């Protein structure tokens, strides 16, 4: 009797031990990659995970960029276990998409490995294209790290694909990529055959008053803003000013006067009101002498809760808008309100009423 009981207990024990693999085989998750998962991240590192991560932490610069990417997947909100909070909110936008977002665990600025480990993550995501010391420190305590760059479209598509692998939803990753590619292809098709000399000379600058010092800066050649101008059918005039592959470069008004572009787009730094900024430029004697200002082609770059110029997924909205302003005759049919509804509806699952009431009122469009 006793032997029979022990034998039964052993069989039950062995059955329970092997059950997860039976469950996996019997009930495969649709779209899930085979385990273990592996991918090459933005820093060129091979990331190997034994299973799909269930608890993901986001740290580093611009955490909202990765958070917005994760929230384009239905699994994102559930898998997000915490994030570094670099400011009063990790994202001013995700509260609208996920009411439970505010309950996510927020780490302080520059959390150490112990603080990160306390959240028991299966994976830590960091924005960047080169490995930092944090990944070594976390690797020593067995916490894997993956980098996401998001800076340029090719990097963005790769990072979306990697997010699909991480979240076990390659299908959704393909949908997201298709959303962006379709819009870019639409613009490129419309502009196909446009001769170089027909492309307006465009200047895109960021106006800042950091540290109380007013400055006008141009983006790096390899950045999203430069890509947006080129793809929208403009000829960027500032590329000879860019001595860095990354970062903003200060330019003075003499240089801008020398370029004298056909169109000027100004990204207003977060603390600057776009309309006031444009008005101050138009009131300035030197700025008024520029061809673009005289012709009414001085535009503030649009934004809603976040700007449409940065590596945030909203860059596709910025690109679409810019194409319509650089070549208004070719893109007469673009309806930006419709584009905004499509963007938030298909990528973040917001219905039309929510977009109309929560997002569209915040959109600063066509400020000039």
């Amino acid at each position, binding site marked *: 009797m006793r032997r029979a009981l022990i034998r039964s207990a052993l069989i039950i024990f062995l059955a329970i031990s092997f059950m997860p693999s039976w469950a996996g085989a019997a009930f495969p998750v649709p779209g899930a990659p085979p385990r273990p998962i592996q991918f090459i991240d933005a820093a060129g590192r091979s990331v190997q995970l034994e299973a799909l991560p269930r608890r993901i932490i986001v740290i580093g610069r*611009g955490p909202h960029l990765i958070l917005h990417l994760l929230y384009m997947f239905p699994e994102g909100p559930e898998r997000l276990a915490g994030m570094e909070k670099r*400011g009063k909110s990790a994202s001013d936008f995700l509260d609208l998409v996920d009411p439970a977002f505010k309950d996510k665990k927020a780490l302080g600025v520059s959390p150490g490995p112990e603080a990160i480990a306390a959240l028991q993550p299966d994976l830590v995501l960091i924005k960047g294209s080169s490995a930092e010391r944090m990944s070594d420190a976390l690797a020593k305590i067995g916490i894997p790290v993956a980098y996401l760059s998001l800076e340029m479209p090719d990097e963005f598509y790769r990072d979306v694909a990697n997010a699909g692998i991480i979240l076990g939803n390659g299908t959704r990753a393909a949908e997201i990529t298709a959303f962006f590619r379709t819009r870019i292809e639409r613009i490129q098709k419309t502009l196909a055959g446009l001769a170089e000399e027909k492309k307006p000379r465009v200047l895109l600058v960021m106006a800042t008053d950091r*540290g*109380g*010092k007013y*400055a006008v800066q141009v983006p790096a050649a390899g950045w999203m803003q430069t890509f947006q101008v080129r793809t929208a059918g403009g000829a960027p005039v500032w590329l000879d*000013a860019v001595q860095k592959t990354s970062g903003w470069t200060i330019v003075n008004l*003499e240089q801008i006067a*020398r370029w004298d572009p056909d169109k000027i787009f100004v990204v207003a730094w977060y603390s600057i009101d776009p309309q006031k900024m444009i008005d101050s430029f138009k009131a300035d004697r030197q700025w008024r*002498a520029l061809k673009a200002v005289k012709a009414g082609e001085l535009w503030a770059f649009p934004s809603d809760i976040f700007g449409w110029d940065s590596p945030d997924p909203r860059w596709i909205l910025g690109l679409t808008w810019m194409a319509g302003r650089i070549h208004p005759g070719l893109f007469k049919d673009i309806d930006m309100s419709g584009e905004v509804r499509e963007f938030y509806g298909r990528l973040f699952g917001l219905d039309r009423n929510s977009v109309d009431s929560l997002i569209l009122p915040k959109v600063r469009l066509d400020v000039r």
Partner: protein
Amino acid sequence: MLLCLAASILLGRYPKPYFTPLSAVRDDALALNLILNLRIPRILSAFLIGMVLSAAGAVFQMIFRNPLVDSGFLGVSQGAAFGASLAIVFLGGTAVAVQGSAAVFAFLGLAASYILARRIRLGDWVLRLVMAGIAVSALYSAATGGIKYLADPNRHLPDIIFWMLGGLWAITWKDVLQILPVIVPCLVVLYLLRWRLNLLSLRDETAFSLGVAPGRERLILLVAAVASTAAAVSKAGQIAWVGLIVPHIARRIVGSDSQRALPASMLLGGVFVLLCDDLARTALAGEIPLGILTSFIGTALFLVLLLRRKLELWK
């Protein structure tokens, strides 16, 4: 000096890089506009700031009898950095708040060093002031580090770093008119009292016996040096090495007598910063931070000076 100023007016990026022909000035309204409203105030600011920083450096080196001191010695630069950081993080970060706060705390650095020096009971007055200055500078640096730690890394921290870069790209006539009432009287005071520096560099008893009131006159000179430096730093940010290296070059040319060395420092400092700023705004399409150029070129000149001195000693 006049040649440098005149040449600088014709250097810029419009209508072509580097040199603006006189015909453009005559025929192009925008060129004239840019020169009158942007270049000239910037050139004047660069020159004045250079004069101030090197005069202050010369005064500090004479008073403290130490060839390695400059405006950072009494907590002036560090105080300005602290004041700017405080304004950026806690006072809204507007231009007025940042510049005002930078100037106030730069001045408070001197006041704190002076008050602390009076309470120290160790060594002579100069030694006490030096020690107090080091302590105040260190305290300000630590406090600035604390503010950077508390600052929002997405917003305030880049602002603080940006302010510290040092540059004159945003200077207009309004800025020049704001600093002139402080800088010009201070430079006049320093110029008129330059000959007293020779006596103040002696021991207090010796200076007193020669008819100098060392405490009072030292204070007047320091206040003039620090006030003008505070005004300059509040507009331009941190510009390194000018106050340290230019007085040495001036003394190499005209000798150590402060009657000649101080005016020479002023002129050379003005020309040095002016030339660096010309390079910063003209060499490339994008602006080069002025602080980087003064550090690079100042360091190179300093090394040349050191090596030449060594060679002369060998001879």
